[in-house]
């Protein structure tokens, strides 16, 4: 990774969309917001629906240009960014292993090496035996694990998660969050994760950014003081409860 002060540096970013039919003014979806994400930091983003969280992630992933302000992702246009959406977004014509190795293939990593790494990741996410299964044969939780592995296999400079467990049932969701915690604690990629779950944010992240409703601005930047390594049981501690209350109040 190139030498940068921070992995993500956002200054006075705003995003406007052209006016909807029958409207006069541009639709301001986001900002202005300013924040930075340090290397190996796990930042969670909470906020009401429509507050521009996905929009922010799309800007960081280079999928959408900022309207005003500056956004810098360390490494610039060559930064490796891992993206996981609410839907797994697997390629239905590639099997599990092929989906996971896609980023490596695109980067020209030799087939054998890509396959070896891919199998390692299949083991990490516990899908042994499903290497050659097609995406449509997977449950939602399994598919989302594959999406996570696909994002992480390139060891991204920045991992962007947009409600990665949002489409899953509550139990699967908790379990995948715990798995992500273990995964992250072993690897420490820099992560920006959008979530609607306060407890998920607290359990996983070092810092929680709370967004206001549209246009999204940061109304609270809360450091999570729970010690590392974290365990699921910390959900039931007093500190956790206090912070959860503060976040709930900030979201309004």
């Amino acid at each position, binding site marked *: 990774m190139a030498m940068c002060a921070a992995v993500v540096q956002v200054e006075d970013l705003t995003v406007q969309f052209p006016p909807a039919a029958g409207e006069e003014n541009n639709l301001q979806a986001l900002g202005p917001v300013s924040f930075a994400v340090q290397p190996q930091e796990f930042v969670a983003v909470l906020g009401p629906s429509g507050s521009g969280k996905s929009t922010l992630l799309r800007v960081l992933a280079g999928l959408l240009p900022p309207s005003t302000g500056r956004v810098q992702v360390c490494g610039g246009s060559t930064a490796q*960014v891992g993206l996981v959406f609410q839907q797994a*977004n697997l*390629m239905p*014509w590639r099997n599990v292993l092929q989906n996971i190795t896609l980023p490596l293939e695109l980067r020209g990593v030799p087939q054998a090496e890509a396959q070896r790494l891919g199998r390692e990741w299949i083991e990490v996410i516990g899908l042994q035996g499903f290497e050659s299964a097609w*995406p*449509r*044969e*997977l449950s939602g939780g399994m598919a989302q694990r594959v999406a996570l592995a696909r994002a992480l296999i390139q060891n991204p400079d920045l991992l962007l998660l947009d409600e990665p467990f949002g489409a899953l049932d509550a139990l699967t969701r908790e379990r995948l969050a715990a798995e992500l915690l273990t995964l992250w604690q072993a690897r420490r990629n820099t992560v920006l994760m959008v979530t609607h779950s306060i407890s998920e944010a607290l359990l996983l992240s070092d810092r929680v950014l709370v967004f206001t409703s549209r246009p999204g601005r940061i109304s609270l930047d809360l450091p999570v003081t729970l010690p590392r390594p974290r365990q699921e049981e910390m959900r039931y501690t007093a500190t956790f409860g206090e912070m959860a209350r503060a976040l709930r109040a900030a979201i309004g």
Partner: protein
Amino acid sequence: MQLSSFLRPRWLMPLSAALGLAAWAALSRWSGLPAFILPPPGRVAARLWLTLQDGTLTRHTAATLLEVLLGLLAGSLAATLLGYGLARYRWLERLLSPYLVASQAIPIVAIAPLIVIWFGPGLFSKVLICALIVFFPILINTIVGLHAVPENLRDLMRSLHASRWQTLRYLEIPAAMPVFLGGLRIGATLSVIGAVVGEFVGADRGLGFLINVARGQFDTALVFVAVFTLILLALTLYGTVVLAEHHWLRWQRCPARPPQSPGGTQP
């Protein structure tokens, strides 16, 4: 044996063929129609044997097959390339679509004579007619297929810094393949029609030419032989595309497995 198990699909095809054949034989025997109107199956079989032996059938079939395949290739190649351009650039679609739609209003049978006048009665005019008739369905299906590429997967490819070529190879082609192959399936049978139309207008070989000649000589049995060969040809081409679909679209076909995690518990 129960009737339902006797009528299993495996039995159904030969059964219906046998019934058809029997009906044909009965009709030609008892209807009093002369052989040059409705030749009996035996006579057609004998004619088939004869034309197979002296190589006539093989020669004409090969000529038609060549036209059909070259036309299919040229037509689908052009349609795919143009379809990609039209799907990618909206302005190009706006610019060309009036012409494309209007061109579909012209029956190919009506302009086939023109094409033969302009390009002569040789191979080229037939290939051109086949290509023209194949062009439109494949063009439409290419465009529809490319429009169906999920936006989320495009985002994924962009976030991975995929080049345009990689996006084409890893995303657009496989995503458009099911619809494209549907177009190719239609195109394959249309191409046979195109070749016959071209040969009717002017040719010195091919199954369409054979039909023309046989008709002139009231050799109706030979017309039947040529028609059956054409049907077989079209079915074979169709079947080939279906086989390709079977292979390339495996991922669509497999039954969805009931959700189950490797550990046996629900993930």
